[in-house]
């Protein structure tokens, strides 16, 4: 019969968590609330990293500000916790400064689609070689649950106490219409599919956007009387519909309505750097000198 190793309670020696090599275990436990989904999104990212073909030394994580923005502090990679909304331009600088890096932006909906919305559309338009994991919990959770650009209509937040009347963004559609080459959406319950998607996105060149629907227990679920994060996970279980290749125009999320998940876009298009180098080579010929990084 197997014995469970209950570490800390009984003085049994156990190996460290298998994801410990990509996590800063000295900073765990993290700041996220009980039944928050951000930690689950992070395990999916860590799982994906085990499978990608890129050396971990070359993978960087950039976050903005907010609950999800704290992810940068928990991954044992070169990780940067930048300013609110500016994770994408920061990552753009990091990537262009050293093109051999693979830069993953992990941040929240408020950070990426709210204050950083302009950077999102332009990074997608340029097809900057970045992976964006946008953890959408429908509110500004870190500051106490204000209405976000993603709050579903009628949902209650701290700044819409009678219900939200502003139309939210359909993030996969926004990213796809601006030119993202890989667009997917999963919930925190779809851990394996999410990890697979993250792996695909990291292995792909170009601007990849994955929306991760995450339960927020303390703010979103509590204010809307939806129970806790587990109840939201159960809700995803019952209401998420996997529809690969769905028309991104039909991906709006209504309040406690069905959530269409899946991989919606997976196309090829030259990245910003590909275009820059190819065009200059064509026009300048021999005179063109490609920038290869700081040691160049």
């Amino acid at each position, binding site marked *: 019969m197997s014995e469970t190793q209950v570490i800390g309670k009984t003085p049994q020696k156990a190996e460290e968590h298998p994801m410990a090599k990509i996590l800063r275990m000295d900073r765990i436990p993290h700041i996220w609330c009980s039944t928050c989904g951000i930690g689950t999104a992070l395990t999916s990212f860590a799982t994906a990293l085990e499978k990608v073909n890129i050396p971990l030394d070359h993978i960087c994580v950039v976050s903005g500000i907010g609950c999800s923005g704290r992810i940068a502090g928990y991954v044992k990679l070169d*990780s940067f916790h930048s300013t609110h909304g500016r994770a994408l331009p920061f990552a*753009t600088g990091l*990537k262009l400064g050293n093109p051999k890096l693979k830069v993953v932006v992990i941040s929240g909906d408020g950070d990426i689609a709210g204050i950083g919305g302009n950077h999102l559309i332009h990074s997608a338009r340029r097809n900057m070689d970045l992976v964006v994991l946008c953890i959408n919990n429908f509110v500004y959770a870190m500051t106490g649950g204000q209405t976000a650009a993603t709050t579903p209509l009628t949902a209650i937040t701290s700044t819409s106490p009678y219900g939200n009347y502003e139309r939210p963004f359909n993030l996969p559609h926004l990213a796809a219409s601006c030119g993202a080459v890989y667009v997917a959406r999963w919930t925190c319950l779809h851990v394996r599919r999410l990890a697979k998607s993250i792996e695909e996105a990291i292995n792909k060149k170009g601007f990849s956007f994955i929306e991760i629907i995450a339960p927020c227990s303390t703010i979103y679920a509590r204010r809307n009387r939806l129970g806790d994060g587990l109840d939201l996970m159960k809700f995803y279980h019952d209401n998420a519909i996997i529809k690969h290749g769905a028309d991104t125009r039909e991906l709006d999320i209504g309040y406690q309505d069905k959530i269409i998940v899946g991989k919606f876009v997976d196309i090829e298009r030259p990245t910003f750097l590909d275009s820059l180098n190819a065009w200059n080579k064509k026009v300048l010929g021999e005179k063109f000198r490609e920038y*290869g990084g700081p040691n160049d």
Partner: protein
Amino acid sequence: MKANPKNVLTGAHYLDGDHACSEGALAAGCNFVAGYPITPSTEVVERMTERFPTIGGIFIQMEDELASMAAVVGAAWSGAKAMTVTSGPGFSLMMENIGLAAMMEAPCVIINVQRGGPSTGLPTLPGQADMMQVRWGSHGDYEIIALSPNSPQECFEFTIKAFNLSEKYRVPTFVMSDECVGHMTEKVIIPPADQIELEPRRYTTLSPAEYLPFKPEKDLVPQIIKAGDGYKIHITGLTHDEKGYPVMNWQTQEKLVRRLVDKIRLNQDKIVEFEEENTGDAEVILLSYGISSRVAIPAIQKARKEGIKVGVLRLIVVWPFPEKRIYQLAKKIKAFVVPEMNYGQIVLEVERSAKGQAEVYLVPHGGGWVHDPEDIYKAIKEAVR
């Protein structure tokens, strides 16, 4: 470390101040520029876009100045020598990530070709009214270094100097040009590469296990690494300890912010730079910087012809401020005359540094054009009366 000959356009050129800044940046080894078009600074990036493809470097036109400055901080951490260029309204937008650069101690250069303000103000005409904003513009306590050129030749030289200072002290460093200097075309001598001394980045020699990203050296500046080298650092805009990890308490805040401020304040004797002329027996000193220091020349000559002993103190490095020297001089002279294209910014620092030992006269100008030298002359006359 010497400049790389492939980047240096050695020779005598007829350049405007903005283009001279570009050549200075290239000579300094700049290989990343993120910017957003804004008059009167755009010529700087225009020249970079022309030059980069043949020498190796990345220019990206970002969606706004918030993004430009964020990209510069990101590029600095990837090991690039990064720069951005802007003017008034864009400078205001950059403040958020200038604070980030100060907090992350990212070496980078920002060129501000100043124009008249506030708001959109005078896009095509000069001003010097961002001199306090450059020092205090982002929230919280931090220090920066700012230089002020008064000719295209100095635009070239000071941009190199700015890169060197930013590398040495790991601090955002500013070239506070203005529309007049930026659009003024003069002879610029670019020396051979082996005569251009560059400050190397302070890369650590420690192993990943020993390295702490914010552990200061003797001069309070920590050693740096670049992303991708396997150090697996965490860098945050939050208050952090030597490891770079966020720590939310007053002790860590005190240690970190004190060091961010002290690394410039305690090294200020090494950073401060100014030009002095006839200050030995002066009764009045004309203290100026940037284009105002050139406009003042006829006024000084006129006053000297009349026998007034006018000394000159021109600030090359405006921030940190040469408070010690000004106090020394204040004890010997009657007054300082400070012409600047604003309604009183650097003059406040002169008053503070003089500690009441000398009178301080401001010759204000709202911007849009340079001072009439006659106004400066009148102020000198007033000061010695």
